[in-house]
């Protein structure tokens, strides 16, 4: 068979690498800015655009989609061409993919600080950007499948399996979770409400971790680790078993984010057991990585690339054991809503994704520039300072999580809450927040060293944009037999379809009954849609990202019902588009805050939280007192919500603003009684209206249940 000459496209890889490093540094810097605000609220620079609630989604989007995303594309474009012995399917698609993705990031950087967000974690971007993501993702998919189809390698290597699973699943997750009804150009409401929205969101959120942060990087591990170690992959059988079990089981585990919430018990239990069954498939990946290093451990000591990879794979193993443990109800009861979870995700993020990316870059850059790494010593320093950074970041937060949770739950001998004031449990862990910020600074310092090292490396070499390669074309003949899985590896389209089937089953089994069977969400007659003013207030709650620090989910524990009031019921959330249960209690739960304090208290608290709660780490929201709500948007909001099933009467949008002004006047009149003057249309008035409504729809048993 004649050898065909072709060229690998290194230029596209180079561009993705530059984007990776740039956004990595920016994303981490935003992280440090946030971390600082948790002990020094003034670090928001007094600006609404840089306040915690707004930049938390900026941080997560920057590190997940900009840093890790670009790194994924760099790794995929580099390894896939070589594993398939083919140039990418279309250069034009490659560049549309690259620039499209960067434009999406740019859009995120602009819209998120402006408060344009959907509130759904890791899916905060508004609907026009969601559409752009879908288009660019499909471009990536066509480019990838096209390359696979014109490959010169008969069988697809395990890395390619993981890339296929990534493409297919992220597409499904993104499209299903982003169903939303537009209100304005940058405002939409989730199609789903309450419990259903929560289930869809965490099916997405959990599997974004699985199929954006895990599977593509397992693929990258399977290429770069054996290459760097110059060792054969340990076990082909293990690759097969852990690939299929991982993608099949992962998709079911989403409900473990919703244990002890209003999600039906059966769905919670599925989340727990599938998380437990996920330990072995995850560890399959770790084992195949670590055992591949058999016979190369002496080199691990010297080679920073291998060092980074070993820690990455180990961190992966730790995080994927911890995750299932956190899914056990008793553990979850302690850890959920605390900083333990923040520590957990950062072991995965900083350790697994970060370190694997660093290892990949240190290996790839010298090769693409035909030179040696500028300074191995500096890379080693990066390794140690990065490792130290992870430890200094995670350990204090583990401590903070456990300490705070135990304080929330502790009762004194007389049967009363030992720490009835939530604030006490916050001031207690502020020192831990400081240490965590130090850990973040260390990690960023290491990343800066890497950026310098890589730039220096590139400068001393010369970049090969087109790398010549040759391979024989695939013969057009039928091949039969071989290992059953090898047969699949020759049929990419069937493989893709099977992957799709494997990842769809879990989602369907959990979602369809939750949507269709009425008994899963018992209706409560007294639960009514929000008034127009409350609706504006709710949208402000979302805009300011209050849900990043406050939950709206009182779990059925004595320690929570004593502190907050009656536990949350599924039927209370039927008009919540989107749901706002939150995932972290930096501040107290707010589901039963309605009527707990008077309007004046809320007014003073939002203007200066320390005036009512000395020592509070909540920032002041001064801008909400000068900015006004836009009454022209009221009708659109009402109509959009009616479309997704909220029972506002036909034509109500015409009179909605009258109701709104009436309710606003009641609040301003109440404030005026305490000599506070404020415009009826000030944002703060709408927010107060919303807060006072929260959790008041159901009659609670007695007065003392509702402090």
């Amino acid at each position, binding site marked *: 068979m004649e050898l065909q000459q072709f060229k690998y496209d290194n230029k596209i890889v180079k561009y993705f690498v530059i984007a990776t490093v740039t956004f990595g540094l920016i994303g981490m810097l935003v992280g440090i800015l946030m971390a600082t605000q948790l*002990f020094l609220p003034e670090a928001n620079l007094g600006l609404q655009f840089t306040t915690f609630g707004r930049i938390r989604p900026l941080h997560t989007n920057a590190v997940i989609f900009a840093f890790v995303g670009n790194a994924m594309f760099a790794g995929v474009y580099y*390894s896939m061409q070589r*594993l398939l*012995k083919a140039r990418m399917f279309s250069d034009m698609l490659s560049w549309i993919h690259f620039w499209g993705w960067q434009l999406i990031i740019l859009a995120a950087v602009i819209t998120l600080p402006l408060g344009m967000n959907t509130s759904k974690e890791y899916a905060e971007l508004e609907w026009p950007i969601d559409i752009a993501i879908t288009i660019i993702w499909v471009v990536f998919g066509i480019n990838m499948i096209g390359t696979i189809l014109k490959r010169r*390698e008969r*069988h697809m*290597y395990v890395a390619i399996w993981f890339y296929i699973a990534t493409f297919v699943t992220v597409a499904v997750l993104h499209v299903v979770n982003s169903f939303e009804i537009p209100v304005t150009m940058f405002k939409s409401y989730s199609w789903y409400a309450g419990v259903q929205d929560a289930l869809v969101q965490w099916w997405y959120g959990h599997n974004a971790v699985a199929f954006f942060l895990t599977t593509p990087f397992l693929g990258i591990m399977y*290429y770069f680790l*054996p*290459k760097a170690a110059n060792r*054969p*992959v*340990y*076990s*082909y*059988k*293990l690759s097969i*078993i852990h690939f299929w079990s991982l993608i099949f089981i992962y998709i079911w585990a989403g409900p473990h984010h919703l244990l002890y919430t209003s999600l039906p*018990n059966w769905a919670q*239990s599925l989340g727990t*057991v599938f998380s*437990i*069954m996920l330990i*072995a*498939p995850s560890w399959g990946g770790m*084992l195949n990585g670590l*055992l591949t290093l*058999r016979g190369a451990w002496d080199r691990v000591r010297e080679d920073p690339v291998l060092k980074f990879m070993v820690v990455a794979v180990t961190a992966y193993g730790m995080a994927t054991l911890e995750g299932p443990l956190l899914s056990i109800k008793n553990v979850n009861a302690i850890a959920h809503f605390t900083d333990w979870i923040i520590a957990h995700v950062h072991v995965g993020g900083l350790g697994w994704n970060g370190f694997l990316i660093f290892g990949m870059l240190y290996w790839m850059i010298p090769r693409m520039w035909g030179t040696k790494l500028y300074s191995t010593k500096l890379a080693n320093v990066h390794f140690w300072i990065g490792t130290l950074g992870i*430890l200094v970041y995670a350990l204090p937060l*583990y*401590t903070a999580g*456990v*300490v705070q949770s135990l*304080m929330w739950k*502790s009762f004194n*001998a*007389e*049967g*009363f809450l030992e720490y*009835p*004031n939530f604030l006490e449990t916050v*001031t*207690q*862990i502020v*020192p831990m927040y*400081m*240490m965590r910020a130090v850990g973040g600074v260390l990690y960023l310092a290491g990343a800066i060293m890497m950026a310098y090292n890589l730039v220096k490396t590139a400068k001393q070499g010369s970049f090969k944009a087109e790398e010549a390669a040759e391979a024989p074309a695939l013969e057009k003949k039928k091949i039969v037999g071989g290992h059953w899985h090898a047969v699949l590896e020759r049929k990419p389209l069937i493989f893709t379809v099977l992957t799709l089937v494997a990842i769809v089953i879990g989602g369907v089994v959990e979602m369809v009954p939750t949507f269709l069977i009425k008994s899963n969400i018992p209706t409560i007659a007294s639960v009514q849609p929000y008034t127009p003013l409350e609706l504006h207030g709710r949208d402000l709650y979302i805009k300011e990202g209050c849900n990043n620090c406050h939950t709206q989910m009182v779990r*059925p524990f*004595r320690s929570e019902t*004593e502190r907050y009031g009656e536990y949350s019921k599924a039927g209370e959330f039927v008009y919540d588009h989107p749901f706002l249960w939150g995932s972290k209690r930096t501040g107290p739960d707010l589901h039963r805050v309605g009527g*707990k*304090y008077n309007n004046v*208290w809320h007014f*003073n608290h939002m203007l200066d939280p320390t005036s009512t709660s*000395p*020592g509070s780490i909540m920032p002041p929201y001064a801008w909400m007192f000068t900015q006004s709500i836009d009454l022209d948007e009221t009708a659109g909001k009402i109509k959009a919500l009616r479309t997704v099933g909220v029972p506002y009467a036909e034509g109500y949008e015409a009179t909605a603003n009258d109701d709104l002004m009436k309710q606003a006047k009641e609040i301003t009149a109440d404030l005026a009684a305490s000599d506070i003057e404020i415009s009826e249309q000030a944002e703060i008035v709408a927010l107060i209206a919303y807060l006072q409504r929260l959790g008041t729809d159901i009659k609670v048993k007695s*007065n*003392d249940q*509702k*402090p």
Partner: protein
Amino acid sequence: MERIKSILKNLSSKYLLLPLLLLTTPMAAQTESPSGVSPTTAFYVVVVLLIIVAILVMLLAVSLLSLLKAVVRTEMSTEKKASLEKEPSWLSKTWDKWNALKPMEEEQDIMLDHDYDGIKELDNHLPPWWKALFYLSVVYAVIYLMVFHVFKTSPLQEEEYEIEMALALAAKNDIEQTIVVDFDESNVPFNDDAEALADGKKFFEAQCGMCHKADGGGLAGPNLTDDYWRHGGSMTNIYNVIKNGVPSTAMIAWESRLNPIRLQNVASYVKSLRGTNPAGALPPDGELYVEEENNQE
């Protein structure tokens, strides 16, 4: 355990803990002063720090050991080296067995003939312990679902909550039988005992301060330091408001959260605030209350 905790408490909060936590900023002093570091927290913090230190020591020991090994090796004769390598340790033998590892020399026999950009694959068996782990997790899953959803022998969250509340109620009833007081809203006396007032103060600052300001000067709730009261300023009036709350206001009933003695302490403390004139107090609110001397004992 208690002893250790108390020792740690003394040691930790100021001298040992904070400097260790790299807290050199003024914020540290600020956060430490209002509540102090509780013994439980201090305990956990110190445990974590000990673990960190232990890890560091271990790392140091391991690296020293490997250094020592390397030095010894270079000085060893080749035969001796060979004989050393032939005797794998008990640990590495178990490791090999549990993983069903093939000796490195036999690797060629299980090398698959694929070659992906220079990457070869071995056809090793699945590690036996890993397979066992997988099977076990599946068994766990089946049992879990059976227990909760088929046989229903373990309580689901709503029932779990009912059980927890019932237990708490029983315990509370037991305790309430031990707290017997000879007063109620109509005749509760002012308690000027220093310990009682300190207890009331502590509670007031943590809880009531949210609305009435820590010094009682008033925020969202009225000033409690002057002679003007919305619901009367006698000891019994104050006790009554705290115990039963004021309907349709933010003043909730504390009866279910405080025992009668604590209620009395807080009421006594509020009473003791009269005339303290804190800075920035709210203007008078309500009606003038004139103390009747014979109301107090």
